[in-house]
């Protein structure tokens, strides 16, 4: 329990640090977001008083550009604490409602990609380890290395051009079929999965390679352990050895990679959702950049970061369940 409390405190601290960082980017940096907004407002309304412009900026991003630093910081943080991310100039509504409509889709896409990628990488790596040195092993290693050197957005472009527009197998853009109304219907859910195939495939194909190789390395190492030999001598069934003895221990070190890849994918969603015209959170962050909509840009940045912090927190909490050594206070294992 002690470990859990410490870990929660850590996550909260990280969120606070990111919020402070975002404040710094808006307010402290010369040419920061607040400065950009003030300049634009001044340019658009040359005759308006400075005070009025400052109030306009403040309404949008909760930072009064003329207030002293500590006051501005307090305003910004209390705004965030109340869950108010400001007003989006481009969308014409609050940043919160833009994000509320987009975030579930990004999480949906990330969840599919992560689960499928790890399922493929782990099983493939284990099979390669069992057939170490065979033609299958060598061939799959080569393919894994090659696919891994393709950036995910390059794969996305190839998929869109050749699978999306070339054939009509998979839809190349959008979140769900335009002819279907959102709701708990087979058509809608099936359509949503159908539309998620190409975006998640872009992540999976380019990301599974090194994971599979790492799994292969771990499995080979575990296969050489004494307890596996003993299990064989005891006459345990192969299936049981493969799953309970080898698989479980080989997967443990992969957990960190899982956490890292969640952050990587959330970040990559900006490019991928733009290419697939998939209105998730990355898509809106890109719109915000394109139209220099600072509140929306900082809001989506904060939400993506907090999402990653939460995902890692959940991952860490469940890691304790998988590996009891973490909680027993044996600190050196935690790395």
């Amino acid at each position: 329990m002690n470990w859990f409390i410490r870990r929660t405190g850590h996550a909260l601290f990280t969120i606070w640090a990111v919020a402070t960082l975002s404040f710094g980017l808006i307010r402290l940096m010369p040419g920061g977001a607040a400065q950009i907004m003030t300049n634009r407002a001044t340019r658009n309304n040359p005759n308006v008083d400075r005070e009025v412009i400052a109030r306009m900026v403040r309404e949008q991003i909760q930072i009064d550009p003329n207030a002293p630093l500590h006051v501005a910081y307090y305003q910004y943080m209390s705004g965030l604490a109340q869950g108010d991310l400001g007003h989006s100039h481009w969308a014409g509504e609050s940043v919160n409602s833009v994000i509320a409509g987009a975030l579930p889709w990004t999480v949906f896409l990330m969840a599919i990609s992560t689960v499928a990628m790890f399922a493929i990488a782990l099983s493939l790596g284990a099979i390669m380890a069992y057939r170490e040195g065979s033609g299958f092993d060598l061939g799959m290693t080569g393919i894994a290395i090659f696919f891994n050197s393709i950036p995910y957005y390059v794969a996305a472009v190839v998929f869109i051009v050749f699978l999306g527009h070339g054939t009509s197998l998979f839809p190349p853009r959008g979140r769900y079929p335009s002819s279907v109304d959102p709701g708990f219907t087979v058509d809608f859910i099936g359509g949503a999965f159908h539309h998620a195939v190409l975006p998640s495939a872009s992540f999976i194909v380019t990301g599974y390679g090194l994971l599979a190789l790492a799994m292969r390395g771990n499995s080979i190492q575990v296969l050489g352990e004494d307890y596996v030999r003993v299990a064989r001598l005891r006459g345990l069934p192969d299936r049981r050895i493969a799953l309970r003895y080898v698989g479980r221990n080989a997967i443990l070190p992969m957990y960190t990679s899982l956490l890292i890849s969640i952050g990587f994918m959330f970040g990559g969603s900006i490019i991928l959702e733009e290419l697939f015209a998939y209105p998730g959170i990355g898509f809106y962050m890109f719109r915000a950049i394109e139209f220099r909509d600072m509140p929306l840009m900082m809001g989506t940045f904060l939400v993506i970061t907090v999402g990653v912090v939460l995902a890692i927190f959940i991952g860490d909490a469940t890691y304790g369940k998988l590996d009891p050594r973490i909680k027993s206070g044996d600190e050196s294992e935690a790395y």
Partner: protein
Amino acid sequence: MKPTDEGDAPEPRTDGGMFAGSDATQVTRKQRAREWFGEAVATPARIAWEDWRMKVGLSIIALFVAVGLVAWVSSSNWWLLDGVTLVEEPISNQGPTRLAPFENWDYPLGTDVQGRDLLAGIVHATPRMIQMIMAGAVFSSIVATAVGTVAGYKGGAVERTLMTLSDIAMTIPGLPLVIVLMVLIEPQNPWFIGIIITINVWAGLARTIHSQVLSLRENSYVEASRTMGMGTASIIQKDILPNLMPYVTVNFVYAARRVIYDSVALYFLGVLTYQGIENWGVMMYIAYDIGGALFNPNNVYMLLVPMIPIVLLSLGLILFSQGTDRLFNPRVRTRQAGETVSEEVDDSTTVVTQ
């Protein structure tokens, strides 16, 4: 053993160096340098070169350095090189527009919507890419090594602060942070862009190095140095750093790939503005935004051609880092050098999954 004279080849040490303590002071600097070279450069290079992944990876990297040199020579205004132009710089209307690859051998890879030679674009974007990679990889390696070793060796409050910092930096997703910074700063200088892209890449390596240092500092030779009264700085430099090379090398490659991926993505999306063809991502941006290559099958090649160097360079870097595995994995290394081999069937390959 007799004291060795300068210039003489050192006698082969049959005792494994155990009884040479009194001679140590008499070994000249030149011999020590030669010995160091043999131990630290020549042997590892020979071992590494036996791995096919290393051969292919290094060849690809060398190819890109050569291409970078060609571009540099071609665009240089320095008096000796001013007249030399091996590959023309890509400019609008230097050839027919929308020429497909392999049709006209003056423009082997074709031309884009504005008649720029695509091959020239690939070549002339290379030097800036190399600059960005160097800046980013060197920056992240130095910061990570400094933070990791200091935190691991000092301990206490310094350690807690530094590790909390790197935990936070590690959690923040890289690309969104980089994009926000690029939008706010709008950098042009390739060195600077490289550093911004790797702004939080150091954190992962710093963590690894930190935990390595924690175990290294307990080693008896480190303790001996401490007992002899050597300062923290020279202990870190002499006893700790050499053991961290594998991690630094792997990180170097990882940072390099991040720089390639992210810089191309930033130009491709139009987050970074461009003047000429300064990045392969610019070529993709022109194809995507102006050529409409996603929807126009006739223009797809404009998008595919600049992808070739991206994938190739990234492949070269991955193969290189996989090849160093043989070098840094102690068991594999001794087996290669033909020394005593432990009987264990265990050649777990350390793969960094990122």
